[in-house]
């Protein structure tokens, strides 16, 4: 028994040996394909980078396109340089640059002497043409075509965003296992939001190259090659002409303009000032320019319409008037005198005023009363408990306007702003230790309220629509079949009934005809607007204005916020009215106003002012 086990073990040894020898006979003697493959066996994978999708404006004007560039790849094992000085002059680089490129390449984690590594990245076609002839003299180089982004204009940078090489962290954390080192990826703006649609699909060709570097055809007849699939084109909601006009008006100013088409939620203009030329963040100068922009004290990379959270100021009175009517504490006929002895200050205007008049003249004491009556509804005998009940009801209605929550716009990094909560006040003052007088600065849009310009424009759209909004968005169609994301086709209703809106619209019309923004009216267009002047403890007040027009068939809703500029009626209102006129009429009938705006320089006048937008 035992001896036979020895035999079994020896038999296994012999069997494996025989299997190997037979298998080797087939590989080495019978099958001759390996010989051919060995001769042509520098297998090279040439990546076919897909064309990234283009982006157009709503009128078919090109916003973003691709420019071909060349990454010059080198396989170090094949590289033989006899004369470094000549080599450097052929490639128009200095010796130091050459050495630092090689050093950096070798430090790279994925470095391999037998794989092509990037030597010079993103050479323009003209730069490449200069060195192309010399390439024949040096073994081991080959050009890899790819594309970078280009812009036929200098606008919309904060919304478009930029692309860049994928970072190590992103590479490691990716879920779908698509990206490879050296791939470009959308880093901000639409480029990031629509990365999946824009990027397309990378292809690869496997080439057999012989020892001398000559292509010998594709590996296994190309059956493992994949074609690159171009990314999908996007059609933006932006009107490039309006956008550029808005950027011009905002030159030398800090702030935002957001214009929305109320009937669809499509964003017509999205201005963040100051901004930058998107062409700065493409190509070989990316890092250098990025560092400059990042260290700029005016923060051109900061996407103000989405990220700058401000107290809304008097434009918030519109929301107060709507919510007040819904709760039932104010009617169109409700009238209060402009009584500053209640607490709030005001400016001279006819008194008393009804609801429309309160909007027309932006009367502070009026909203003191409206807000007080919303907070104290006498539903509980304890004043503090009553305040809590009233406040909760008020907040519930207010946030239905999209305040205090992130609007699901198709851009990253949108901020929610802030509508204080019941528990927030409990934390500060203690449970049942706060009442109307504690929180009353909310009535005119001050206090702890924070709203981003996008939410302000959305409020204008809600009033224009008499009670609903579509989530504001920047892309209206994706790809060949022009599909629209479903979430942008859903109506969001606010918790204020439509019947309460017309009186607000009338009040806003009166703001333009004989109220706080009378100087910004346009003869043929009925605009509904509301000014705001936001108290700013850090410097000059912020100038705010929201509006929509025309009153009967709203085509545009707009919010303009100019930091440290003073009265809403003096700066934000005329800027908005020029934008409205430009969009609806495509002409400017009041060149003197335009001139005044264009010439105004808020930045260089007061360079020391701390912007409250950054808090």
């Amino acid at each position, binding site marked *: 028994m035992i001896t036979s086990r020895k035999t079994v073990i020896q038999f296994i*040894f012999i069997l*494996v*040996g025989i299997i190997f020898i037979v298998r080797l006979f087939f590989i080495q003697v019978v099958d001759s394909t390996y010989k051919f493959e060995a*001769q042509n066996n520098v297998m090279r994978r040439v990546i076919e980078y897909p064309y990234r999708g283009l982006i157009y404006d709503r009128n078919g004007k090109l916003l973003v396109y691709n420019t071909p560039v060349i990454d010059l790849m080198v396989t170090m094992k094949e590289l033989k340089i006899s004369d470094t000085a000549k080599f450097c002059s052929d490639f128009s680089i200095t010796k130091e640059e050459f050495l630092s490129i090689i050093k950096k390449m070798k430090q790279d984690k994925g470095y391999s002497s037998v794989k092509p590594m990037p030597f010079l990245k993103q050479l323009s076609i003209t730069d490449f043409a200069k060195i192309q002839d010399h390439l024949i003299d040096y073994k081991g180089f080959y050009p890899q075509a790819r594309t970078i982004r280009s812009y036929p204009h200098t606008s919309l940078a904060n919304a478009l965003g930029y692309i860049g090489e994928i970072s190590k962290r992103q590479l490691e954390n990716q879920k779908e296992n698509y990206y490879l080192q050296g791939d470009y990826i959308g880093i901000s703006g639409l480029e990031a939001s629509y990365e999946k649609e824009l990027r397309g699909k990378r292809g690869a060709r496997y080439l057999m190259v012989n020892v001398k570097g000559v292509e010998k055809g594709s590996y296994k007849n190309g059956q493992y090659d994949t074609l690159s699939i171009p990314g999908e084109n996007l059609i933006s909601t932006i009107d490039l002409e309006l956008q550029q006009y808005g950027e011009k008006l905002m030159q030398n100013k800090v702030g935002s303009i957001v214009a929305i088409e109320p009937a669809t939620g499509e964003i017509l203009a999205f201005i963040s000032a100051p901004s930058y030329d998107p062409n700065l963040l493409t190509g070989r100068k990316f890092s250098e320019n990025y560092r400059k922009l990042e260290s700029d004290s005016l923060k051109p990379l900061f996407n103000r319409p989405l990220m700058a959270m401000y107290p809304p100021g008097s434009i918030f009175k519109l929301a107060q008037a709507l919510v007040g009517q819904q709760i039932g504490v104010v009617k169109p006929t409700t009238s209060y005198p402009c009584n500053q002895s209640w607490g709030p200050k005001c400016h001279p205007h006819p008194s008393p005023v009804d609801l429309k008049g309160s909007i027309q003249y932006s009367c502070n004491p009026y909203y003191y009363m409206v807000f007080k009556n919303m907070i104290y509804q006498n539903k509980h005998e304890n004043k503090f408990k009553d305040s809590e009940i009233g406040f909760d009801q008020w907040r519930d209605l207010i946030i239905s306007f999209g305040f205090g929550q992130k609007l699901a716009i198709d851009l990253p990094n949108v901020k929610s702003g802030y509508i204080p909560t019941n528990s927030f006040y409990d934390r500060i003052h203690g449970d049942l230790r706060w009442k109307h007088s504690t929180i009353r600065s909310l009535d005119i849009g001050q206090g702890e309220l924070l709203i981003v310009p996008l939410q302000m424009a959305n409020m204008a759209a809600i009033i224009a629509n008499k009670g609903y909004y579509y989530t504001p968005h920047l892309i209206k169609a994706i790809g060949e079949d022009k599909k629209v994301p479903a979430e942008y086709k859903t109506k969001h209703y606010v918790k204020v009934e439509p019947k309460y809106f017309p009186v607000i619209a009338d009040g806003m019309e009166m703001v333009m005809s004989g109220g706080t923004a009378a100087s910004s009216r346009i003869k043929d267009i009925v605009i509904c607007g509301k000014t705001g002047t936001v108290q700013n403890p850090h410097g000059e007040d912020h100038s705010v204005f929201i509006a929509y027009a025309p009153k009967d068939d709203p085509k545009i809703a707009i919010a303009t916020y100019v930091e440290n500029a003073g009265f809403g009626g003096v700066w934000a209102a005329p800027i908005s009215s020029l934008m409205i006129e430009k969009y609806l009429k495509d002409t400017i009938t009041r060149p003197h106003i335009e001139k005044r705006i264009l010439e105004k320089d808020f930045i260089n006048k007061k360079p020391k002012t701390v912007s409250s937008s950054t808090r």
Partner: protein
Amino acid sequence: MRSEDSLSKNIDWLTVLFYAVFVIAGWLNVFAAVYDADANQSIFDLSLNSGKQLMWIGTAIVLIIIILAIDYKFYSTFSYVIYGGIIFLLLITIFLGTEVKGSKSWFEIGSFRIQPAEFAKFATGLALASYLGRVNVKMEKLKTQLIAAGIILFPCLLILLQNETGTVLVFSAFVLVLYREGLSPWILIFGVVCVALFILTLIFHKVILLQVLGVLLALLIIYFAYQAISNWVNKKVNRAKRYITYSIISAASFMFAAGVVFSVDFFVYEILQEHQRKRILVLVNPDIDPLGAGYNVIQSKIAIGSGEFIGKGFLQGTQTKFDFVPEQSTDFIFCTIGEEHGWLGSSLLITLYVLFMMRLVHLAERQKDKFSRIFGYSVASIIFIHFMINIGMTIGIFPVIGIPLPFFSYGGSSLWSFTILLFIFLKLDAHRRQLLSH
């Protein structure tokens, strides 16, 4: 002087000759693997792997002298101590080890780096031999089997924790040793069947596989049923009953095989992640990922295949020039032989290995002492598993598991570990008559 005389007389010089041939041929091929015709290199250049390997060979000879000088009783007496020491080293490596290529299996003392897992092989061999070598231990007992399994699996677990899966597989070599010492052959067959089913599941769709197995089962049962009935009719009741038992066993085996197929299928396609799955699937089709997981296998097959019948000649291999085959001086050293020495050279080397292993089995069998015999089988089996997996992977019949070819591959730890393994056994063998006198 007397003891040295007897040592030189009693040591098995044939095995030493095999050892010398493998080590020197390995060294030459390590040089061939790094050789660059344009660079005017010397095989002794210490900056090349070949120069370093020569240093390793030198130290290995010192190691041999030490091993042969130590009293032969030392190894049996201190087997558990050595085993315990290695276990301790493995444990601290888990916590203090240095990570190299994703496995935390290296232990660094100054500039000196060792891989304790390599040395766990001979230590486990010693401990197993020591335990099974006791007079009153019977392999048939369940208790014995469990303790033996414990001795083998404990270091495996520690090595697994270091992420050194390849080395763990080597420990399956001990199954052969246990088999020789009386373990039921069914366990051996069971293992082979599982592996075969695993590979078949990768190649064929599970439904097809089950249909084929089902047809086989049906044929078997029809045959058994026929036999049972004809025996019954002929009044041979016992025989008939036996055939009924057979058919029940076949049905049960079928259920078992189906279970294996389904669980492998589930494991590979549902549990494994994309890159792990690729690693396994390239085994049956390297082309699914020609520049990724399948790269090594394709390149190594091209290198070997291009050697044809007699090879391109020493240092004439072209596939080496561009480093097509990664790890060429370590795990893929066989490619160099295949390419430069062709089918003849490869077959000669394989034959030499087989003869060498046969010789080891022969030596093991001639031990009068159980301890030496078991250790001898351990040596033969460990070398066999390395030989099988290493060459198997270079010609694409095993998945790529990074383990060296014994005595041949570049690397200090592996050369030392195999040298220790072999020469402890040769020392024991040289004293086999003295051991008898115990």
